[in-house]
């Protein structure tokens, strides 16, 4: 009988931490996982040189960049989960508006906490419907959420006849936009909180691992007994809830609920998530990357405006840089 070879080196000796790090770098995706940070530093450096006397590096402007990235970053965290699970959520922009309107409607009458929870709840409910239709009726999520985008946009438009709903609640505004800790805006703090929660959920919760498994190989995930239908639903709920939270942040910052808040955010969010190293087709996600991607978008916006470019040239420059960044992260993905 055969009894040789592999037993001689049982997995006894664990490698040193440094070796382990190098090994993980080489085998878990190589440069790809760091493209977004590289791009961030590169763009930051470029603007710092070009705009050194145009206030780009002033602390107030850097805080601006962080603050302005907040809604996109929060939505990107949610979208990363939807994509990781092998789904996509096209309805996030309309959920932002819905959430801001629900918050504006309810904060006025029932106070800050009830209003915030109601806005989050309404958003999560949209995600639940998205998920249930996707999974139970077996319609691809990009179609379900496209339909939902229309439905929610319509509801938002009818809500107050296209007019803004003012929010007069200092606690709400202070908590979600106007206030902060010293010079650091509450928007920045929320971005960090949501990013950290998302990172923990993806890497340290059973749920995050199951989301990734479901997106990577649904059959294999089913085979080990993961309820992949429920995982997909929950990922779409998280995506919608995150969009709802972004709506709350915008409502707090502007002190309004409005039907068109977030209307144009979808593609920026997807670009931020993909640049951040999340696979558009499931199975790979990075939360820190998604937040960094959102910061890149915000920084591009800010820097190109400060360069004094005309609007048309800003659009062109932004488009070119986004394509370059995405190309870089996708190329690396193919090589590995």
């Amino acid at each position, binding site marked *: 009988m055969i009894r040789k070879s592999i037993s001689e080196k049982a997995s006894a000796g664990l490698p040193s931490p440094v070796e382990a790090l190098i090994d993980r770098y080489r085998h878990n995706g190589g440069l790809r996982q760091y493209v977004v940070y590289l791009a961030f530093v590169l763009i930051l450096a470029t603007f710092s040189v070009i705009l050194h006397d145009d206030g780009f590096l002033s602390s107030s402007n850097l805080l601006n960049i962080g603050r302005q990235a907040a809604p996109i970053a929060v939505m990107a965290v949610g979208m990363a989960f939807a994509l990781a699970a092998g789904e996509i959520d096209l309805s996030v922009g309309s959920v932002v508006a819905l959430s801001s309107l629900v918050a504006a409607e309810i904060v006025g009458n029932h106070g800050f906490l009830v209003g915030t929870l109601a806005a989050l709840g309404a958003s999560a409910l949209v995600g639940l419907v998205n998920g249930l239709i996707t999974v*139970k009726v077996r319609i691809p999520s990009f179609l379900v959420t496209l339909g939902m985008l229309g439905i929610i946009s319509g509801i938002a*438009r009818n809500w107050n006849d296209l007019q*803004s709903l003012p929010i007069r609640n200092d606690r709400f505004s202070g908590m979600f936009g106007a206030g902060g800790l010293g010079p650091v805006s509450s928007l920045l703090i929320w971005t960090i909180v949501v990013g950290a929660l998302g990172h923990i959920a993806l890497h340290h919760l059973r749920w995050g691992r199951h989301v990734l498994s479901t997106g990577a190989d649904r059959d294999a995930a089913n085979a080990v007994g993961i309820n992949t239908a429920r995982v997909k639903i929950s990922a779409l709920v998280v995506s919608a809830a995150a969009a709802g939270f972004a709506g709350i942040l915008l409502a707090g910052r502007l002190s309004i609920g409005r039907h068109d808040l977030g209307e144009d955010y979808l593609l920026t969010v997807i670009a931020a998530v993909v640049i951040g190293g999340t696979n558009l087709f499931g199975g790979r996600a990075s939360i820190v990357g998604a937040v960094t991607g959102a910061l890149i978008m915000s920084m591009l916006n800010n820097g190109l405006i400060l360069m004094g470019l005309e609007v048309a040239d800003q659009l062109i420059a932004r488009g070119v840089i986004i394509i370059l960044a995405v190309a870089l992260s996708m190329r690396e993905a193919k090589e590995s």
Partner: protein
Amino acid sequence: MLGALLAVFVLAAAACGNDDDDNSSDTPATAASATAAPATAAPATAAPTAAPELPDEPAPASEPEPTEPEPAEEEAPTREAPVTQGPNGEPASPSSEIALTASELAQIQGGDYSAALLWHSAAAFTDAVSQGARDAFEEMGIEVVVETEAGFDPAQQANDVETAMALNPDIILSLAIDPVSAAEGFRPAVDAGVQLVFLSTTPEGYSQGEEFVGVVTDDLAAMGVAAANLLGNALGGEGEIGYIFHDAQFYVTNQRDQAFKDWIEINFPGISIVAEQGLADPAAAEDIASAMLTRNPGLDGIYAPWAAGPADGVLAALRAAGADDVAVVTMDLDTNVSLDLVEGGNMVGIAADEAYEIGRTMATEGAYGLLGKETPPFVVVPAIEVTADNIVEAYRLSLAADPPQEVLDALGG
């Protein structure tokens, strides 16, 4: 709040952690779909943004009503022409009153000032306003350090204000996309003492001379009157017309449409509006015009609320019906209607605004602010009655550009 966020993740995680109750989520499914379903049946109201080539002003906080200051006039037997008034009923001053003296100009030129242009959206209208402002600023030696467009997103506009403030501009020209949230959005500029000049709408709660220097707008009522005059005169004051109005809550078109209708009724008693139809989707204009012609074969004229889309559709319907004797008027310059106008087609005239002049006036008001010079509360630029005879000049006044080559060719030939 952290708790609530955590709860979302926890719920999701917990829901997946427990595999024993597979079907527990089915019940909310039906409930949720049921609540969502009726919404699909609700008709979507047309968005302001769905109307291309419009002057892009959203509604101000409180809409001016033509008869507001003297309500008695409404009952009076002879009504006056509709006039444009400021958001708080201020009387309109013509833009020609806004100018710098030679010594004031010299003072500004020596000041090394800078300006920021924070527009609401990108369109031909905005380009013309922007060009007017840039030209005027250049004459005054003021550098335009930044220009943005917010794509009708109030949040983006608030971002743009913050970003522009990094360059410490002395003047900001802008259109407040959403008057309610703009009060918060422009706060950094107000706090820094920047001279703010607004186009059409002002942030809620701001008052002229305190937070901002002045507000300039196109004369919407005058545009309606101009269109009415063009059509009324073309028909010799007699006939039956169809009236197509923008069926959406949108300040600019609502004002213009109403002013047209009012002035036809007041000034042209021989003309009757025999067909009236709202337009929500610009693409439906051709169908609406065809139906109007079918029901009213004796129709002499049609009013379309703006050029790109609605007027194009009306022209197409008239051509299809061979109705080349039906006169058409509309608002805003656009290549297709201009071409029809100079080639002697159905178009008898176009009402346009002097967008370029709006920009110039706003820039000059910014200088007023720097000088501490008193500014009239509400300044309007005149409307233009465009015919084939003055179309080249009209393009320059309105869009700060020559007419498109096709139009020039048609004029030459």
